[in-house]
């Protein structure tokens, strides 16, 4: 089962270097155990610029999450949660 937030759900994320290390979601703090994948898109600049870093990660509590960071605004969002 996955939950998808197509337009991204904003959340607070702490980083170490450029990688997410901790985030707050639904009133809870989650620590990132491992970033399993990291990709980047930069497109649509002629209409609606999408420039984002995506991170697929596993938390210590076993959640698998895809977060992304908008590289223009530097804000973080959650895209998808795998149960």
């Amino acid at each position, binding site marked *: 089962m996955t939950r998808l937030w197509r337009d991204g759900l904003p959340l607070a994320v702490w980083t170490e270097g450029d990688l997410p290390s901790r985030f707050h979601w639904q009133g809870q703090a989650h620590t990132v155990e491992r970033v399993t994948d*990291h*990709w980047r898109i930069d497109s649509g600049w002629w209409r609606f610029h999408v420039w984002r870093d995506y991170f697929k990660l596993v938390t210590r509590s076993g959640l698998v999450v895809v977060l992304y960071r908008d590289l223009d605004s530097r804000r973080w969002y959650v895209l998808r949660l795998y149960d």
Partner: protein
Amino acid sequence: MTDYVELHCHSYYSLLDGTSSPEALVERAAALGMPALALTDHDGIYGAPAFARTAREAGVHAIFGAELTLHDDSHLTLLVENATGWANLCALITAGRHNADKGSAKLPAGVLEGHTTGLIALSGCRQGRIARALLHGDRKMAFQATHDLHDLFGAAHFFIEMQQHYLPDDRWLKCELLALSARLNLPYVATNNVHYASREQHRLQDVLVSIRENTPLDHALNLRPNSEYFLKSGDELAPLFADCPEALINTVRIAQRCQFTLDDGLQSLPLIATPDGMTADDYLRHLCSNRNLTEREQTQLEYELNIIHASGLSNYFLVVWDIVRFAREQDILCQGRGSAANSLVAYRLGISPIHPFDHGLVFERFLSSERQVVPDIDMDFDAERREEVIQYVYQKYGHAGAAMACTFVTFRARSALRDAGKALGLPLDVLEHASSALDAYQSRDLGESTALREALGERLDNAVWSHALAMAEQLSGLPRHLGIHNGGMVISAAPLSERVPTEPATMADRCVVQWDKDGLEDAGMVKIDILGLRMLSVLADCAAIIRQHDDPAFRFEQLTFDDPAVYAMIRAADTIGVFQVESHAQIQVLPRLKPAIFNDLIVSISLIRPGPVQGEMVHPYLRRRAGIEPVVYPHPLLEAALSETLGVILFQEQVLKVARDAAGFSAGQGELLRRALGSKDPQAALERFQTPFLIGAAERGIDPETAQTIFDKLRAFGGYSFPKSHAASFAVIVYRSAWLKRYHPAAFAAALLNNQPMGFWSRAVIVNDAKRHDITVQGVDVNRSAARCAAEQNVIRLGLNLINGIGKNAERIVAARGDQPFVDLADFCRRVPLPRRLTEKLILAGGMDGWGISRRDLLWRLGELASDDDNPLALPLISEPVRLPALTADESLHMEAGVVGFSPAAHPLTRQRHYLTQRGILTTTAMTRAADGARVRVAGLLVMHQAPPTAKGFHFLTLEDEFGMVSIIVRPQVYVHYRKIVRHAPLLVISGTVQHEGDVVNLLAKEIKAWQGFQSSSKKESQSP
């Protein structure tokens, strides 16, 4: 800092894929502290010479290579280790290019084998065979491909290439590749598949892909998913290869192995057969000495021949001599242009028409021991017959030994805006409208363009248009596709493709090398420009007519350059059609310059050109010539060099002489100074000359202030100076064409008409000028016209070739006519089946007036004949004879002008003259006789409209009536009001003030109206202006 060298990098010579010049890439690499950089464009090394030069200057080690497209469309990255590798790469690229359509490449299977020595192969990007197989889930195929490449290149020459661009499956792919390399014990290397120098340019790269696919950005399939394909430093890449740092270290190791440098110098030139076993040097001397020589000539010849020998160029001269010899044997008019006229050897060989002593020309402008550049010999040939010369060269040297230089068609302001706009999805008709509002050469600050704002209004401010303009500006100047250089041929004894790849050109049986003229010069290769000059075709045509009717032995060589009648004609600016001196600018200045001798023609050509300092040079020169201003020299020592131009620095040769006389520079040093003055960044280039110049001047007793003034004058004018040698060669053609106009005006005009488009003026102007010179112009006639315009005595018979679109049918009509004139339309149509449209044009142009039937009736009859043809089984049409109204004279005129561009019968204004005079509107001749300051009105056809960029918004118009032409000056503040009228109305009435400047009379415009003209009396009078 992590050491890293980029080994996979595309410049804009990967057409419609890379965005950056080789220079920009080198600059970026240097800024990153990268010690070396590879250039690997798709199937080409177009950028190699510029890359080599810039890298050398920046202290970056240049690595050469290419990304090849193989027979299965996979990619392979190749880097050159040594000279053998380079020859192999050239051979591979040539093979790939000749195996595909123009603009593409596909290396046939099996060719790679046998061409791998001296090359290091990297397995390629995602389109490399190995990565591609892995991405398709075919590990077996990936393994096989790796194995095969490893076998082909050998262990030390093959690396698995890995790239990390933050794509979702990049990490996975890297793991697979690392696994492969471990299994086969192969080294691996990291690259970034660079397509732009800095991140921001990824947008331009997207636009290029969109253009390449001919699909708007919204729907383009092959856009890169992000902006990571820029030139990155080792520090930026290190985290991506943290698990395999060897990948980065290997880039440095590979770079150290690639030690090939490009500057090979002169290509091996073919040997011309010499008699009696003479060496090339001896034969050259022999050819130059076959007539009596003065002592001075002998000394100069020895001097030149020694330098030619020391530069290894004897064969080059013989090759050119041989081509000229062929042309002369075939009676093809030709002459050298440009700096070759500085050489006595060139003159003695018949290459240049100018004896350097006659004009104080300096050999070192052409070739010297200090000049580090190879000379170029440019030859002009009769444009109609140039192809024969080119074919001779191909035949003699074979396709392996001869090819043309390439040239790149680049994006210009208008095409850039159109293409960028299309990529962004803007509507085509709006784009057309916008791009035609642009100045052809404006590529900066498009957003500030008032013409654009007028065309687009507020749209200009919205986001999409902002993007379009920004992208258009970035696109301008980028190469778009390969064209053919206008005649530059490279000739070599050894196969050319060992030195530089060749690829097929658009014309069948023609090859181009992958370097343009700058690239060839950088690489030290010599070429010969085989150019077509239409004026030579005009001279040849005219000479043929003269030989046919007047003087069977006529040759141009019998003319001496001193006929006063010819100069009188030029002084009166009666020069329509004359080479180089017919333009509006020339017509304005000639009556003030008053040329009287051949040298004055040289001055005229050199002086009257657009340019920023024109005002500061032309006016002082003319004033001094008229005696209004005294002739002064910055220092007496300069008098020798500058007396011929009254103290003004006009010729490039004078720059050398001033440097010599004022500062003791050798001729070679003077030439280097002259080149620096003309370079793109003169300030920087001049620095190293200033101190030696000032020192030398001091040694000659010139005080420091004066010396500085002289140097500053050189700096200001030296960049604008014109090569006297070039002007002198051209002046020969100026004189000859002027002589023809003076003594054989009908033949000359006919020849001009036959060789359009060319020159400054339209056919209509040429014809009207001929008529004003009492030449009878007879219209196109199917029973009397030849295929081309012909002339006899003072009569021109226009040719069938003047009918737009007639092409080869002109000859067919003449052939079908034979000795039997066409008796009527049916007879004509039967004997010469033509597309109906063309027969219509012939009727409209008056070509069938000879049968005494009105054109309307003929057109009607044509319709009947056509329908007869369409349906042979139909019952005969019983048609009542139709009475069609006769054509008025105006209507006839109009019809002819529509087809031929003008009416030979009468000038459009002849029939209006009565009405114009009634309204006090003057003829052009009356206007030129009016007093200075008089307020007048004049009417005419607009035949010329110029707005030179250096004229600060001033526009220059030429109006023509049946008596002549006048020049109109329109100030910017006046033009603004009448722009639309000037751009769209062909007949104008202009009121303004007469301005006299010496013998030149202009009208300073105040008001411009369109002339509606009067229709024939059966219609109402239209509104009078």
